[in-house]
């Protein structure tokens, strides 16, 4: 049950998802499927509904219309513990109420596996997660005393330690420096290579272009484009969605699209 399905199967499927809050349509008719072995980036301007969509995919909020499936089963039918063994979520803001150490916070990622045979793997999972997120030097520090970027990385380690087959990341790079931004997306790539499904909300279109298998662009609650980075990230579309002119070039090393704003100084 814990092992990721061999690449290719559908991990999560959102069909006709709409979400209204206070009479305002935040999402309307979003249909999206994410396969195992894929990194899917959700991009779009502020307020486009990216985080809400991630919340719907995570099962935090039930959509007003439409359905969300995980492994073909509606999210609402999953017992919480079983769901926690199948998907992990990194939120944008990560606060901890009391002065737990970074190590204790990472250890909490193993909570869903208590009482299962996988609990044997706790030590290895925590060690690997700590190394991958590059937080080995922070483990003894109190979480509330860490910087924003350090908090984000420790929380990422917690999510990685959970070792689920679906991983949802909401702007994991927002507080990070250049090196760690790249590292996080390399981790996402590695998870996908292991057969897991990764859904990541990103603001940096070049990061999304470089690392995602597929990009889904949201604007005003609707999905406006979906596909491989080179197909989706066109100058016209980005200019239209974001309301600002951009230049899309090809990275000479990777052949991936690089998006830069057109500036006049």
């Amino acid at each position, binding site marked *: 049950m814990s092992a990721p399905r061999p690449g290719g199967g559908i991990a999560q499927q959102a069909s006709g998802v709409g979400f209204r809050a206070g009479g305002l349509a935040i999402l309307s008719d979003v249909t999206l499927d994410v396969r195992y072995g894929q990194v899917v980036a959700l991009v779009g301007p502020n307020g486009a509904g990216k985080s809400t969509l991630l919340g719907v995919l*995570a099962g*935090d909020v039930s959509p007003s219309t439409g359905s969300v499936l995980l492994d073909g089963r509606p999210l609402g039918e999953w017992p*919480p*513990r079983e*769901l*926690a*063994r199948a*998907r*992990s*979520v990194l*939120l944008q803001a*990560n*606060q*901890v*109420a*009391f*002065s*737990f*150490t970074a*190590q*204790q*916070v*990472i*250890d*909490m*990622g193993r*909570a*869903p596996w*208590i009482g299962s045979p996988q609990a044997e793997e706790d*030590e290895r999972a*925590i*060690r690997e997660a*700590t*190394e991958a997120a590059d937080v*080995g030097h922070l*483990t*003894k520090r109190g979480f509330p005393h860490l910087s924003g970027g350090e908090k984000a990385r420790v929380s990422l380690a*917690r999510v990685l330690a*959970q070792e689920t087959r679906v991983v949802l990341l909401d702007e994991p790079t927002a507080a990070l420096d250049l090196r760690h931004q790249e590292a996080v997306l390399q981790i996402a790539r590695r998870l996908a290579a292991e057969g897991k499904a990764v859904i990541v909300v990103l603001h940096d279109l070049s990061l999304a272009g470089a690392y995602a298998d597929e990009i889904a662009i949201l604007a005003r609650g609707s999905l406006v484009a979906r596909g491989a980075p080179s197909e989706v990230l066109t100058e016209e579309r980005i200019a239209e969605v974001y309301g600002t002119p951009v230049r899309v070039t090809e990275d000479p090393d990777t052949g991936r699209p690089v998006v830069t704003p057109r500036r006049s100084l």
Partner: protein
Amino acid sequence: MSREASRIVGRASAGRGTIVIAAALVLLLVGIVLSAGLGQLAIGPGEVVGSILRAIGIDNSWAPSDGMIERTLWQIRFPRVIMSLLVGAALSVAGAVMQAIFGNPLAEPGVVGVSSGAALGASASITLGLSVFGGWTVAVFAFLGGLAATLIVYLTARAQGRTEIVTLLLTGVAINAFAGAGMALFTFIGDTSSREQIVFWQLGSLNGSRWNEVAIVAVVSAVAAFIAILLAHQYDLLSLGDRTAAHLGVRVERLRIVSIVLVSLLTGVGVAFVGVISFVGLVVPHLMRMILGPSHRLLLVSSMVGGGVLLIYADLLARTLVEAADLPIGMLTSLVGGPFFFWLIRRNRKKAGGWA
């Protein structure tokens, strides 16, 4: 290697936990013997220990032969000492649980009005002469009053999975004011004996504790504390925030509702028999968190023992500080706890610029 570190950290805090709990248990035993011995009729520690040993079937030469001493010990002193131990433990666990579900070290049954809600429930049943639940009536009404207050606090101060500290404390101010007025009303319309009892509830006193009351408090608080300790790991996860805790498999809403009932039980049952005793649930878990860290299993167990210790000594002071006078213990804990609260606020202001 980090896991190694974690195990070492874990072992160090578990080791420290053992030392702290062992020390607290020693203090507790000394406190029981001291408190049982001191008073208008002074009884030596040897006689106290002897009497206890005899009661559990070990015959010894220390045991008092004077029937007067025996009666004083078993009818007056021991019930009172055990009651103070139980109520201290119950209030500390209630405080720690409340802090866990509000994610905030300032949540405390007295401060946010749960205790006065319970006292209002108790005084209502007294003045109105209710006896629907027999000997349990006062306890049941205290529980219901505490439950109502906890629910109001919870529904008012929590929004979108967060607790705003200002709202939390303002809710406490409002509930304390309302409960105060309600008790004033019952004092006004009640007869002389109800008035005396209500004043007693406002001030808090362990005087006149009886064994049957002790038994009720013991059963209720033992069950509630046991459940709280079973939930300890979920409280740890809850400190990551509601959503993240849910992502890790915690049924957050259910956990909160169970916890609210636990807090009301632990607070209500204490208040029912000894009145409002504030700040115990604030001071004890706070000190334990400073010494042992925030992990809830150790925190709850050590707070339980620490709360018992605090109240045994506080009650000993209340009885012996002024000759031939039994000071209200609630007054005493507030006299000490109030300044502690100030210190906590000042300390936090310096460290983190206060609570927004």
